[in-house]
């Protein structure tokens, strides 16, 4: 596989950090090399939030994402800030409420899906947006096995929300397939 450099962005509280932790855990379970890190500080509480995960078959030396192969944005502000720094063949996954500049659409594969709306209307829990995103990103990039991903999700959610979160994961993948 090509080294995957993933940048998840959004607003503090949307769970983008947790999503990268779950993804890294699934990758580790699949015996892949992985590192995960996040930006801390005031910006992690309501403002811009950024988390990163690198997945590779080879040992990972430098721990930060330089230019991502995938950008996930759940808010307009986070897309605007991070859309400038991308690899040429990078994939962008965004919530469908977000406006992606035409020149970006022309040069990159953009997957625009109703992540937040689906969390509220289908899953009936806005907190599930990050897990829907995770399902979507893994469907788009084929990073980790479904089995490891589900196991990692279950490791990180409150008791009683197992079905809801697994449904959210599947919904994310479905939205990408239908796109």
């Amino acid at each position, binding site marked *: 596989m090509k080294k995957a450099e993933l940048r998840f962005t959004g607003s503090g509280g949307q769970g983008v950090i947790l999503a990268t*932790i779950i993804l*890294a*855990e699934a990758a*580790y379970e699949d015996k892949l*090399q*992985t*590192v*995960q*890190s*996040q*930006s*801390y*500080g005031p910006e992690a509480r309501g403002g811009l939030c950024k988390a990163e995960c690198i997945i590779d078959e080879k040992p990972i*030396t*430098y*721990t*930060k994402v*330089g230019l991502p192969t995938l950008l996930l944005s759940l808010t307009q502000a986070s897309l605007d800030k991070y859309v400038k720094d991308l690899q040429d063949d990078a994939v962008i996954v965004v919530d469908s409420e977000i406006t992606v500049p035409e020149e970006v659409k022309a040069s990159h594969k953009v997957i625009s899906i109703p992540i937040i709306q689906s969390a509220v209307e289908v899953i009936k829990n806005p907190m599930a947006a990050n897990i829907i995103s995770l399902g979507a990103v893994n469907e788009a990039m084929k990073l980790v096995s479904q089995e490891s991903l589900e196991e990692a999700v279950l490791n990180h959610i409150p008791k009683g929300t197992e079905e809801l979160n697994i449904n959210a994961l599947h919904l994310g993948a479905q939205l990408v397939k239908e796109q």
Partner: protein
Amino acid sequence: MAKRFQLLQGNEACVEGALAAGMKFYAGYPITPSTEIAERSAIRLPQVGGKFIQMEDEIAGIAAALGASVAGLKSMTATSGPGFSLKQENIGYACIAEIPLVVVDVQRSGPSTGLPTSPSQGDYMQAKWGTHGDHPVIAISPASVQETYNLAVRCFNLAEKYRTPVIFLMDEIIGHLREGCELIPAEELEIVNRGDHNVTGMPYAVSEGNYVPEFACFGEGEHYNVTGLFHDVDGFPTNNNEIARNAEQRLMDKIDMNLDDILDWEEVGTEDADVAILCYGGTTRAAKGAIEQAEAEGLKVGLFRPITVWPFPDKAVEELSKKVKHIVVAEHNYGQMLGEVKRVAKDNCTVDFIGKIDGTTLTPADILNKVKEVL
């Protein structure tokens, strides 16, 4: 039974390594970016029959940890720069009273409260000179999550073996990084434990050919005196100049005479390289990235990384300075280990520096550009 292979944060791996080494007591005051060490200790210590206590401040944190250690428990406290400053007086106390203790400093940008969430290596000199007076220091710096686990064990072992505080000099880069980590069980590790030595009226007596007095747990058997004043072998203070000189000399000797055991470094590809990058801790990851890029461009660049950062590996760096034409020191500070490298390298090779002091991190490109500048 916990999974042997886990995705962990550096801070979490620090706690797991400490537990494998036998940590039974943690006292401290949480501070970013070290807070996860307190959090995980609070969860994990009660599970293994240990105690966690959050004290009213950083000074009380180290003081409680020292007390627990004297009473026989392997103890740790963790903090970041501002708290590390507060702990300095008691680090000196641990040095002279010869109390084993692991003090973790997950460095952030300073001085003062600085940039609380940003990485730095600005406490390198403080780890050595933060507490006053001539005193021995062992400081160790990890460059990955796995190494954080392994070296936490080593910190405890060295603290016990040499009856001295050991500084685990981490940084935000590794402390907050998640990576895979093998939680090697204690049975598969070399663990140094205290013997069941009893006080004989001379708690600080050293047997012939040794530098370290055997540890007698306070509260078991006869009571003895523990003091920050220079003391005779009976543990009581003295103004006798000869006793003071001998006591100070022995404190220094117990480290200086055991450098082969204490020093540790990683050296890669320096034999046939014109330039070596010298770095430690989290900076190593960017340096290794730079070396990968250099190789892709056909440049041979070596790496020298002190793992034991204090005492400084004088001899090994002197040899390095004779092997290569240029050393580039990379640190997340204004140039601290740089001074040590210059002291040792003298005129054997050029010594240049690349650092960061704005809270951002050095990238492989930053370091590679510096390497190309000096070549």
